[in-house]
């Protein structure tokens, strides 16, 4: 109970949140330990014991079939990469403004759908026969590199604009009322979801990769893995992670964001236009959602319900990692992605196939982290 007590006592300072990756060196070390709960509590020992068992179990399974293990691990890593892209936008907005953007999943899905529409309308180059599309269409349609990149950039930009509009029209005048802002974004997500269903239908669709990209790559150890997942998504996530780190750590904008996270009123008093910074942060957060939507629409699929699914993933990632922390988002995404991938394959014990119950492991992950760190791994009292 001791750390919960501490966190509540600090509850008077609302803006003490931290973008952990960006935190000044002094505070990062402080976040390594939960306030007031150093050492080895029974909970912690139990969790470490469970983690050791899980790792051993995975090693045993992995030794059975190393190639399969490698592919499953890569699946987990690439899923984590996508989750990181989406969740980092979510956590960025939360860290600075304390706005929980429940429409984040909608922005993700809308980004994907917009890119798909652009690709379909502008870049679809039919093969010889114009008819009989449904069966043979896929083989004859070719897509150039431009037909993926242009929708990606345009859709991302449009989502960024929509995000800023949401912030300016609906959220700006409710600053500080975090529950009300969450309710507003929930209302928006309901409207978005229904409108997307009306406009794009209920059938699962996906964005096509450029035809001249290889479908898979060969890795050492005779492992084959999808090119898009393994190279494009992973690369994009690494680039975005590095970019965000540099943006927050090295630029003037980042400096203001970090200062704003710590003490918004003080920043405003110093003559900085905080509203502009908020709009900027919301722009970046929405851009990341839109970008993630195009990646996800290519890597997985676009369908009604994907917005929920990615909102839930973003929630879990930031709850695990600690809300408002970029480093936490990365760790949370890794944890969720890997647990998801391993649970889908390795939850088989002899003849009993428990893969149906894999969602329980996600739940256990969430509960396990919250049991030890109620504010997430890198979370600080709000």
């Amino acid at each position, binding site marked *: *109970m001791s750390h*919960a*007590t501490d966190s*509540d*006592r600090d*509850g*008077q*300072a*609302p*803006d003490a949140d931290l973008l952990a990756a960006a935190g000044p060196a002094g505070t990062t070390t402080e976040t390594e330990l939960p306030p007031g709960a150093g050492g080895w509590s029974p909970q912690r020992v139990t969790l470490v014991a469970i983690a050791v068992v899980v790792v051993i179990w995975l090693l045993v399974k992995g030794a059975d079939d190393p190639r399969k293990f490698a592919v499953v691990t890569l699946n987990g890593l690439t899923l984590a990469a996508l989750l990181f892209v989406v969740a980092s936008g979510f956590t960025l907005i939360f860290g600075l403004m*304390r706005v*929980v953007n429940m429409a984040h999943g909608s922005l993700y899905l809308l980004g994907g759908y917009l890119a798909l529409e652009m690709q379909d309308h502008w870049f679809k180059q039919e093969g010889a026969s114009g008819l009989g599309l449904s069966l043979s269409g896929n083989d004859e349609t070719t897509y150039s590199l431009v037909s993926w990149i242009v929708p990606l950039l345009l859709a991302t930009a449009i989502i960024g604009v929509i995000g800023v509009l949401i912030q300016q029209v*609906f959220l700006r*005048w*409710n*600053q*500080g*009322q*975090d*529950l*009300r802002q*969450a*309710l*507003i974004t*929930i*209302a*928006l997500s*309901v*409207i978005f*979801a*229904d*409108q997307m269903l*009306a*406009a794009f239908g209920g059938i699962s669709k996906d964005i096509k990769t450029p035809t001249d990209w290889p479908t898979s790559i060969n890795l050492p150890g005779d492992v084959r893995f999808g090119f898009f997942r393994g190279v494009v998504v992973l690369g994009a996530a690494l680039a975005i992670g590095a970019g965000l780190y540099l943006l927050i750590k090295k630029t003037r904008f980042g400096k203001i964001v970090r200062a704003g996270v710590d003490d*918004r*009123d003080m920043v*405003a008093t110093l003559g900085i236009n*905080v509203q502009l910074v908020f709009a900027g942060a919301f722009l970046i957060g929405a851009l990341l959602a839109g970008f993630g939507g195009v990646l996800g629409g290519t890597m997985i699929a676009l369908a009604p319900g994907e917005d*929920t699914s990615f909102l*839930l993933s973003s*929630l*879990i990632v*930031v*709850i695990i990692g600690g*809300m408002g922390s970029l480093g936490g988002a990365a760790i949370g995404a890794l944890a969720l992605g890997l647990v998801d991938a391993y649970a889908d394959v390795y939850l088989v014990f002899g003849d009993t196939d428990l893969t*149906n*119950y*894999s*969602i*329980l492991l*996600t*739940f256990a992950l*969430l*509960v396990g982290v*919250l*049991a030890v760190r*109620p*504010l997430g791994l890198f979370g600080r009292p*709000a």
Partner: protein
Amino acid sequence: VSARGRSGWLSLAVVIAVAALAPLAFSEFFVSVVLTKALWLGVAAASLTFLSAYGGMVSLAQVGIYGVSGMVYANLVLADGGNAAAWSPWLAALAALVIATAVGLGFGAIASRSEGIYFLMITLAFSVLVFYFFSQVTTLSGFGGVNNLDLPSLVGDPVQDPAPLYYTTLAVSVLVFLALRYASRTPFGLALQGLRDEPARMRALGFDVTRHRMLAFGLAAFVAAIAGLLSVWYNRRISPGSISLAQTIDVLIIAVVGGLYRLEGAWLGALVYALLDNYSREYTPEIGNVLGPERFNTLIGIVFLVIVLLSPGGLMGLWESARGQLARGRPGGSSPPGRAAAGAEGDPATGGVK
């Protein structure tokens, strides 16, 4: 008893009397599809409103909990799909209440350590996880849901005669309302309101804040479990789709539209929701693909948005401020539910930036 308390009992009696006579005045369709549905949705929303009004916790886990209750019942009685264990309906109902309340206490144990917006997010995650769990585990949820549930004889066959189920639901609603209102006035409820407003002081006074929150969450979970039972009695079926995020948000919408700060609001919001659900389609103008009979969710989303933007106290808040102004006889005077009008979660310190 104060004058206000007496008028409260009086209006409650009037509402119950009107509701009891409703089957004589309205068609069977209206009684079943609007009134019964509004009552059980009201119970579900009341579990949320109770936590929010007295504990300051806006929980989105209520649908997850009522889903557990409904699924347990559906699997224990005779039914198409699921386990079809063919227990007696009353025994199954008891088991459903116990299990769902236990699950709720478990959720509460984790979530009650956090506050405000964190609490909202964690409980939302719980609800969605319950949905995904039942979507994945088709041995429990059946392919296409569990259908044709065996009902207690008290309820009869709602399709033949909706009245017994209506009166059952009405009686349960009244009991739930009275019980929750009573609970809010016990020492337990008063302490709950204390730690809604001043957790740090309550802790200093020696209260175990986390455990208190958890127990309040358990009480609300019990109410949500009742709502889950009523919902499966009403629908005679349950599927993962009926406990999805959409339903979670619908219950939230009902609670918010009615008013998150007054218990009565839950049933008021549910009635508005059920009426809109059934009759809005006839009057909604058709604007291309954007609005029309098919686009009920857009409509309800807009209603929700407007209420949240204009009256954070919901319809109850509107009603109270109107009554306050009438009583004062000078429109434009300061309205009494000041607490309801302000986003209660908002921190005063953050308001300064505006």
